[in-house]
C-alpha cells in the first residue's frame, strides 16, 4: 500500500513516542517520518540531574554504543537500550522538525507543548507552496508503556484520515471516532507550507 498522504510523528526527542508510532506506521506501509522538537535529544541518565544528551543527527547506533559503554546494566534495566535498538531498525538518526524542509500532510504530535512548537515553526516559515498540513496532537506521557499504548491509537487515526478522500472533510469525524474507540481526545489545527 502506498499512502496518499505523508505522515510525520513528532515528539520531544524523536526517541520514544514518535519512534514507537513511526515503527508501527512503517510496518503498516504508511509514508511516514518522525522528528523531535527539542534542542537536544535527551535520555534518562543515572539520575534526574544528569541526563544523557545528544545532538540531533547523532546516529542511533552511536547512542546505543555510548549508553552501553556508560552503564549497560542500568540502561538494559530501564529499557533504553532496547528502545534505541528498535530505533536503529527504523531509521538512521533522530531528526529535528525545525530543520526539516520536507512537506507533510499529516503531522501527529504526542504532547501539546510539542504541538505548539510545531505550529509555531510552521507559522514562521514563509508560505510558498500553499499546501495544507494537518497537525494533530495526542497527549501521551513519555514512558515506554504509554508510548506503546499510544502508537496503535496514532495508527488508527492515520488510518481514518487515510481513508478519507480529502482529510479536511473528515478530520472532525475521525477525531470523534478515535475518541469513541480509544477514549483519547485529539486536538488539531491546520497550517500551510
Amino acid at each position, binding site marked *: 500500500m*502506498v499512502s496518499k498522504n505523508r505522515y510525520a510523528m513528532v515528539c520531544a526527542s524523536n526517541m520514544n513516542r514518535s519512534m514507537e508510532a513511526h515503527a508501527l506506521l512503517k510496518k503498516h506501509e504508511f509514508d511516514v517520518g518522525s522528528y523531535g522538537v527539542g534542542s537536544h535529544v535527551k535520555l534518562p541518565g*543515572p*539520575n534526574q*540531574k544528569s541526563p544523557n544528551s545528544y545532538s540531533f543527527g547523532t546516529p542511533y547506533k552511536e547512542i546505543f554504543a555510548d549508553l552501553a559503554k556508560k552503564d549497560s546494566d542500568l540502561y538494559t*534495566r*530501564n529499557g533504553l537500550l532496547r528502545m534505541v535498538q528498535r530505533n536503529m531498525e527504523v531509521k538512521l538518526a533522530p531528526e529535528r522538525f525545525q530543520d526539516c524542509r520536507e512537506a507533510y500532510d499529516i503531522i501527529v504530535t504526542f504532547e*501539546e507543548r510539542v504541538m505548539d512548537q510545531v*505550529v509555531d515553526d510552521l*507559522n514562521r516559515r*514563509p508560505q*510558498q507552496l*500553499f*499546501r*495544507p498540513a494537518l497537525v494533530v496532537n495526542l497527549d501521551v506521557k513519555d514512558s*515506554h*508503556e504509554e508510548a506503546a499504548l499510544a502508537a496503535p491509537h496514532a495508527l488508527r487515526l492515520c488510518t481514518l484520515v487515510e481513508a478519507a*478522500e*480529502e*482529510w*479536511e*472533510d473528515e*478530520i*472532525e469525524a475521525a*477525531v*470523534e471516532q478515535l*475518541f469513541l474507540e480509544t477514549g483519547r*481526545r*485529539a*486536538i*488539531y*489545527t*491546520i497550517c*500551510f507550507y
Partner: protein
Amino acid sequence: MALDHTRANAVQILNEAKLCQEGNQKVTLLSQLSELVVRKEPGLSPEFIPDLVVLQLDSFLGVRKWLSTFLGEACSQCPSPTVLELTTGGLAGLLQDSAPGVVKQALFSCIHLIRGALGQLALNPMNEELISLMENVQKIASSAVSISVTHKNDSVKVAGVKLRENMVLLFTAEHAPRLPGNVLRSSISSCSDVPLKLPSAAALAQEADAQLRGLLDMFRQQQQAGQGVSSGTLLIVLIKALSGIGVQRPGLLGRLLPSLMLLAKEGGYRASGSEEAVPLRGGEVSVGNALRLALSSIIRSRIDTSVPWRDRIVEALGHIGAEDAADSSLKYIQRQEYKEQKASKSRNRQESAEAEDQPNKRPKVGGSLTNGIAAPAEAVSMALGHATCAGGQLTGGSEVNTPPVTSASDLQQVMTLLGAILATGDRTMLAAFISNLPVSALADVVIHHMPNLPLGPPSSLSFMHVVGTSATSNISTATTSNTLPVPQHQRPPHAPPTQRPVSTPSPPPVTWQQTQHARLQGGYNISSTYPPYSSAYRQPPYGGPPPQAAYTQPPPPPGPPPNLILPPQSVLPSQQHPVPPVLLAVPPASAPDMTAQQHAPPAYLPSAAGLVGTAFVTKPGMDPGMERVGGPNTQVTGAGSRSQPQGHQKVGTSVAPPPPAPPAAPHVPSLGLPVPQLGWLSGSAPRHLPLGQPALPKDIRPTAPTALPLSATAGSALVGSGPEPLLLASEQLAELRRRAEFGELLLARMAASDPKDVGQLMLDHVVKEWKDDTGGEGLQVAERWLNALFVEYITEHGQQKTTSELPSTSGERGLGHDDKADKKGKESGIKEDALKKEVDALNLVTNDERHSLSTMLAPVASTLSSTALSETPYEEALLLLLNELWRLERQEAVKLLLLQAPCLTLPGTVNFLQSLIDHGGDWASVALSAARSLIQERPPFRSAALDLVLQAAAGLVPETRSKAVRLVCNQLIREPQLEAAIVQFASAALSRLVPKSIGVSSNIIPSEVPPSDSTFSSQEEATRFCELYSALCVVRPALLEGLAEAAAHSGVMDPAATSALQTAAVTIARALGVKSRELLSLVKQHPAGSEHVVRTMVDAAVNGEVPTVELVEACRCWYLQSQDVKIMAPLVVALPRAEVLSLMPHLLQLQGANIRSLFKKLATPQILSGSTIEPMFSPSELLVALHCPEEWGGLADVSPIVLRNAISEALHAPETFPQQALAAAISKMEGRSPLPQLFMRTVILAVKSAPTLRGFVSELLSRLVSKQIWLDKAQWRGFLMLVENSDRTFFSVLLQLPKPVLEACILPSPTTTEPYLQEHTAIKLALFASSAENPVQVLSPIQQLLDMVLARYREATAAASAAVDQAVAAVAEEAKHDKNGSSCSLLESSALEVAENLDSNLGIGRRDSPDETDIVDDDLKEDFEVEFNDD
C-alpha cells in the same frame, strides 16, 4: 545542450504518460515530467503546458489532481506571461471538476497565478497584454472564490479561505510580489531585487476590501451556525486567516478583531488547559486553541493598532479559559520592550563613547547628533530603518515587500565610490552610477547627506517650478510650508520670514504617489474613492494626470506636499540623467582624499557640473574654507552655484569664490542645494520627473523603479526632521540656542505668572522636548518653570516660613549628610542670596549656569517644609507635569522630574507615588525606585517615602509587594536610620497572623485587612503579612526568633496563616543554609508549639547539603527528649546504617510525602554539597527489608499494618522504586521459604503499578505453581485474586494446575473453606481454554472439568431465561386484568427484578467468609478493587 537533452527526456516521458493506461503509473511519469520542466528547466514550461492542459479530461482522479498542482508550480517557478495565460485557461476548467481534491488544488494554484500576474504587471504596468492577463486572472480568482463558497466540501472551502486571505494580503501590500524564476531574472537584470510598486493599487485595494468582507461574512455565518453545526476545520482556518491578515495589515485589525473576540466570548469554545475544556470534544477544543493562538499572536505582534485592544483581547482570552496565554503574552511584550530599551540605551552609550573618543568626527548616516544635541527620534529612526518603519506602521507590515535598508558596509562602499567618482569629476560616470543604484540605497545616500541640505528655501523662489503646472511662479502655500519644515520654535527669531506665494495655485493633479498615499492613510477603506478595476489599469503610472472621471480627489494627506518644487530646467544638470544634486555634496568621510579635512566644519561641494573643468574638490590639502560654495547669498543648483541676485551661472564655469565668514547675524546660509530633493524624498513625486513636462521620456519611464521606498508619512517625517541637523550644524548654532533658551526662560516666567493660560503651552513644550535618558530640553524647561514658581512662592510667603522651619529641618540633605547640618544651619541667610541669584539667573542661559542655579536653590528647597507648598501653583504645576508624563507613559521622565524638582510637596507627591504603586507593573517599579531616591536624597520625604515602600511590601499585589520587599531587604535595611522602623513594621505585620487575642496588633500596617480575628481567605492573603519579615530573616537571621515565636501560636492560627509560615520557613532555611548558627540555635532551643516550623526549616536546610555534626547532634538530642522521629528523618543520610535500622520502626510510621522522602533518601543517590552520596540501600534491598522485618530486628517493633502501609507507599513511588527494582525484589523474595507474608500482595500491586511486569509475573506464577503455592493458604488466596482481576493474562498459568487443585478452584463445594475462583472467572477460564488465545495445551482431565463448568453455566442460563420468560408472561397476564393502566410499570419492574436475580442466582452461597487471621484479605481486597477500578 543540456536544455535540449532535458527537452528530449521530457518529450519521451510525456509520450509514455499519454500511452499509459494505469493511473498511478501515469501520475508517477507526470511527476517526473514536472521535475524536469518545472524544477530543472522552468523555461520549458510554456512548451509543455498546452499538451498537459488537456489532461484535465483524464478519467483518473490522480492525474487531474497532479495537473492542478503542476499548473500552480509552473506559475510559481516560471511566471512568464505565456505560462500565466495558459495556466489561466487550464485552471478555469479544473475549477469545474467534480472531484473536490482537484478543485482544492486548483484554488491553491490560483494563488500562484495571482502572484505571478501581479508581479508581471508591476514590471510593465503599461503593457496592454499584461493588463488583459491580470483582468482574466482576477476573473478566474473571483470565480474560484464563488465556487469555494458554495461548495459542499470543507476541503474546497478551506482552500477558498486561503485564496481569499492571500488576495487580501497581496492586494494591500506596499509592493508587488517578487517573482522568482530564471526567466524573470534574466529579463529584468539588475532591477530584480528592487521592490516594485503595486500596479493600480486602488483597484486592487477595492478588490481586497471585497474579499475581506467575504471572509468576515463567512466567519459570521460559521459563528452563527453554532456549536456542533459549524465545521471546526473551516472555523480554524478562518480564525487563522483573519488573525494573519490583522497582524500583517495593522490597518485592518480594527475590522477583524471584534469578530474574533465575539466568537471567543459567545462561541462557547475553550482552549485546552482550561478546566471547562475537559468535557468538550476535540474539535471544539481545537477551535478554542485556534482562537487562543490568534488572539495571543495579535497581542504579541505589538503592532500599534493592537494596543488599544489589548485589554479586550486579554478579556477575550479569559472567556476561552486562556488566561495563562494572556499573561504570557503580556509578559512577552514586557520582555521585548525591556530588551529594546536596553539595546537602545546600550547603543546610545556606545555612540556617546564614540563621540567622546572622536569629538571632531562628523556624525554618521542620518546625522542624528551634532554639537551634542540629539536630533528627533523620528529622524534617527528614519535614517536607521526608514523602510521598515514605513512598511511596518503604515502599510500593514508586509515583511516580504518592505524595502530593505542598505547595510552600513554597503552604504559605506557606495559612499566611497561616489567620492571617488566625484574626485574624477566625470559627470557621465557619476550619472550612470547613480542611475544604476537601487532606490533604497539611493535613499540612504540622500539621508547620509541630509546635514548638507539647506536650512530653508532660497531667498528667491522665482527659479522654482511646480510640478504639474507650467507656471514657475505659482508656488502653493502647502508646498512652501512643507518644504520648509523648520518648526516655528526652532527658527531664529530674526530669520527672514518664509516667503509665501501671493497667488493661489491651481489645484494639483492627483499623482500616482498621492493615490498610494491616500490608500495608506485611509486604512484600505478606499473602495468608495477608487475607480473600478478596468479603468484603473489604464491610468498612467507616473505623475501624469489620470482620467479625471476615474478618480475622486482624496483628501490632502497630512504629510508631504503633493507638488514637487524643482529648480528650473535650465539649471538642471541633465534631464536625461537626473542626478540628485544632493549627492554632489560629498561628506568628509566618504571622499578618499578628504581625510585631511575631516576635522573641518561641514563642507559643501559644487555640483558635478561645477566640477567639470575645475577639479575643484580634488585638490588635496585645499583650504576647507575654499570648499564652501554658496554663502549667504548664493544658491547651488543642479548646475552649479551662483549668487542669487545675479542670475544663472554657466555650467562648467569656475566656481564662485569662497564666501566670507558668516556674519554675526544668525542668517542661515543657503548652502547650495536646491530644496526639491526634499520634495521627492517625501515620496510626493517621482524622482525622475523632469520639470514642467507632462510626459516622461520613454526610456526611463516604466523599466526602472521610480519611487523611493519611503512611504508618504515616513517621507514627511524625514522632511520634518531634515532641517534640524542643519540648524544644529550651523556655526551660528550657539547664538541661536542662547536666544532659544532665553525664549524658554521668558516662557517659563510667563507660565509661572499666568499658569492657567500659558501652563498648557509649557506642558506641551516640556513633554515634546523631553528626552527620556537625560531629560534634555524638556527637563530644563520644566526646571525653569518650577524654579520660577518656587522662587515666586518664596518671595511671597517663604521667608517667614523657612526662617521658622530652618532649625528643625536644616541639614537633612541626603543620608550621610547629617554632619553638614550645622554648616547649613549657619547658612540660614542663604535664602536671600539664593533669591537674588535666582532673579539674576533668569538672565543666564548656559547649562553650567543653570545647573548652578539648581544647586543654589537646593538648600533652600530642603529647608522648606514639604507641606508648605501644598495647594500652591508650584504644586499644581508639579503634579500637572507628573501626571502628564504618566499619561504619556514616560517612566524615566517621571523619575527624573521627581529627583530634579526644586522641592516636592508632601501630600501631593505622596498621593501621586501611591497612585503609581497602585497602578502596578512597571509604574510600581518607577514609584518604588523614586521612593528609594527620595529616601536617600530628600530627608523631609524620608519618612513618607519609607512608609510608602513598607506599605507596598505588605500590599495586595504580589508583584509589587515582591519588588518592595526586595527593595527593603537589599537596600533600605542597610541604612542604620531606617532599620528600626523597618523591623518594627515587619514585626507588626507578622503579628497579624496571630489571632488578636494573642498577638500584638499594630496600626502601622495596612489597614484594609486583616479582619480582627486574623482569618484569611487564602494562603496568599496570609503571605503578605509574613513576606517582609521572612525576607528580613535572611539578611538579619537574629529575627528568626520572632518567626518562631509567631509559629508557636500556630495551633490557634488560621490554617492559611500556618501554611504561609511554613512556606516562609522553607524559604528562609534554604537561604540560610545548613551551617546557620541561628538555625542551630533554634533547633536547640525553640518555643513550644513551633516544632513543626523548625522541623520544616531543618528539612529544607539539609536538602542538598550535608548536615553539620552540630546540627545532627542537636536533632538527636531533640529526638531523645521528645521521641519525635520526624526530626531525624531528614538526617538519615548523615546517620550510620545501624542507627537508621534502629530508628526504622519509628521512621516507618511516617506517612505520605514524609515516608516517600525517607525512602528516597535511603535508596537513591543523594547529591549533597556537590558530591554524590551512594545510597544506604538499593531499592530492591529496601523493599525486601520492608517485607522481612525479622532480618533487621524490627519484627517485634513494627506492626503489620505499619509495614503494609509503608510497602504501599513504596509501590506508589516509582521515582525511588522503578519496576526493575520491583522485579528484583520479588525475585529475591521468591526464593525464601516461607514466602514473606505480604509477598503476593506486593506482586498484585506491582502488576498494577507496572503493567509491563506482567510477563515477568506470569513466569513467577508458573514457578509458584511448581512450588505448590496452594499449600500456603494466604499466598494461594492472593494468587487467585491476582488471576481473577487480571482478566485473562494469567489463565494459562491456571491451566497448568493439577486437576484436584483446579477442580477445587473452579468447582468448589458449598462447604469448602479453601480459596476458589468466582464462577464468572471459571466460565471465562473455560472459554479461554478452548479459544485460539490459549497458548497452552489443555490436558483432557482438565478439559473435562472445564466442560463441566460450561455445562453448568448453560443450564443456569437456560433456567434463568425460562424464569424470566415465565415472569414476563405472568406479569403480562396480570396486566391484562389491570384496569388502572399501570401494567407497563409493573411489567418493567417485574422483568427487572427477574433479570437482577438471574446474575445473583448464579453465585449464591458460593463464597465463604474470609479468614480473620489472614492478612491478605479485606485490606488487600480493598486496595485491589480501588486500584483496578481506577484503571
